């Protein structure tokens, strides 16, 4: 009986979530009183195995399988490892690539799947914690199954640190190429351009609370008055109101300014991934329960359309 965690790498490097998986995996393994196994699929498997050899890991499985992630390969490899090891829990990252293979793995193995997990408990019944309604509530999902799959939310567990002495097992798994029906042809960097919001000391950031394109001006004026740089959450960029290089978050830029002023931004997990490293976070949001207040150092729970002009007036 094991917990089997699937690590993630891209373009030669393990991603942070791989080390978080080790911590989460150890926690789940302890709760279920089993071992923690980790798999490295593709890439420089030997090097990655060494990097993942942290305290708490019992066995690391390496499977050479091309350089980059391909879900047709991953599903076959995991299927084969799972048949071999019969893991109690298959633990995968709730990353963009995790979302591209975990549901298929679960379906292929006929196992229940709980995604975007932020907590786990087996003291009484086996259960996972996850959020709903845009992070406004948490739910407990009880898992009444001997075997199951979970994907864990990135940035939720600490990265594993201490040195380990895991056993490394090398595998050769034959891939049925006829079942690989997608080809990755390249990568593209997006969000370039003249402004680099990750350089800014002060960011004034606008979200969907602004309602209309013409209202963006209001926030621009504040940014100008403060000598700050304008950034935004995703919906503003999706709507084409600001260019992609202004987007803060998981799929935009990671920023670490001295001051981050979030105006009409709820603080969704993918947004927070890009700004949680700011020194001082200030929120202006009408909803006192908005998740952004979990991070904020200062807040104004009021209508941005009333507060922002007053604020701008002070500095112009």
């Amino acid at each position: 009986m094991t917990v089997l965690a699937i690590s993630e790498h891209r373009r030669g490097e393990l991603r942070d979530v791989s080390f978080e998986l080790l911590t989460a995996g150890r926690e789940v393994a302890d709760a279920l009183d089993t071992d923690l196994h980790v798999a490295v699929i593709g890439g420089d498997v030997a090097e990655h195995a060494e990097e993942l050899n942290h305290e708490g890991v019992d066995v690391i499985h390496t499977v050479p399988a091309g350089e980059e992630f391909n879900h047709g390969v991953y599903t076959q490899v995991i299927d084969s490892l799972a048949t071999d090891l019969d893991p109690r829990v298959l633990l995968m990252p709730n990353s963009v690539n995790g979302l591209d293979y975990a549901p298929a793995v679960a379906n292929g193995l006929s196992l229940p799947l709980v995604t975007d997990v932020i907590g786990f408990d087996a003291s009484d019944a086996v259960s996972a914690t996850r959020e709903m309604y845009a992070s406004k509530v948490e739910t407990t999902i009880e898992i009444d199954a001997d075997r199951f799959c979970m994907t864990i939310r990135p940035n939720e567990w600490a990265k594993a640190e201490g040195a380990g002495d895991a056993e490394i097992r090398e595998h050769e798994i034959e891939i049925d190429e006829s079942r690989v029906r997608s080809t990755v042809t390249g990568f593209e960097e997006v969000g370039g351009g003249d402004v680099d919001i990750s350089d800014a000391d002060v960011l004034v950031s606008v979200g969907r609370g602004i309602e209309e394109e013409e209202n963006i001006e209001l926030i621009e004026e504040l940014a100008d008055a403060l000598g700050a740089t304008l950034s935004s959450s995703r919906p503003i960029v999706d709507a084409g109101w600001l260019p992609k290089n202004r987007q803060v978050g998981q799929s935009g830029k990671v920023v670490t300014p001295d001051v981050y002023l979030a105006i009409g931004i709820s603080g969704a997990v993918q947004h927070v991934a890009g700004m949680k490293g700011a020194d001082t976070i200030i929120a202006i949001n009408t909803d006192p329960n908005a998740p952004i207040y979990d991070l904020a150092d200062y807040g104004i729970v009021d209508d941005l359309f009333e507060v922002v002009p007053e604020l701008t007036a002070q500095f112009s």
Partner: protein
Amino acid sequence: MKILVTVKEVAEAADDFELPDGALDIDERYLEYDLNEWDEYGVEEGVQIAEENEDTEVVSVTIGPERSEETIRMALAKGVDRAIRIWDDALEDVAFLDVEARARILAAVVAEEDPDLVLTGVQANDDGFGATGIALADRIDFEWAAVVNHLDLDVEGGLAHVHRELEGGVEELTDVELPAVLSIQTGINEPRYASLRGIRQAQSKEIVPYELADLDLDADVTDSPLSLTSMYEPETESSATVFEGSPEEEADQLGELLGEMGVVEG
């Protein structure tokens, strides 16, 4: 060509919602229903493909109660040709429909409709599982791609050239064999507003109601080893200093703070 687009009506919780101890869901009176944000982009993508390719039909599929017909009409008004809505007493009774159940129900619709392309949203903004589309793909033996923010369809070549939006401003360029399920990311297109003409036409478009039995499914399709056993408001981790008063007073205090921090001189 036929495109199947999944359309979900999602609930958003009002700012002042209350959740009594022991409740397994937020009471209806605090919920506002709307078309899932991600599905709006899926609908638009399907309609655009139909506009660019002759003889292409766009069919939407929704698992949802009668209430959701209003949302489905919005999709019809934007150019979806016809809609399927699945509901059943057996679905009414489950508090939590897991990914497998949804995929099984949608797979039965795929068997019936035989589409060339299925478009789903990356996730639903109420429960955010983000897994239905890809679970469906594996179940019906379609190829797939998750989190697609650019799509270029080569119908003759049987390929979809897609960009998958990865983390950190990187996109993966991938060729996906058809038939396929693509989970669509926001921003892939600019969803249109329904025209008055579209809204009028939508009134006469068909929303076919299906029960599970119509799809050769038993009520046990909803059986799951997973159950939602509690829902609660997370304890706030907030340690924010909140400025109080009139908007002017609030702005004054914040302005003072920014001044003290040296954000602006003077």
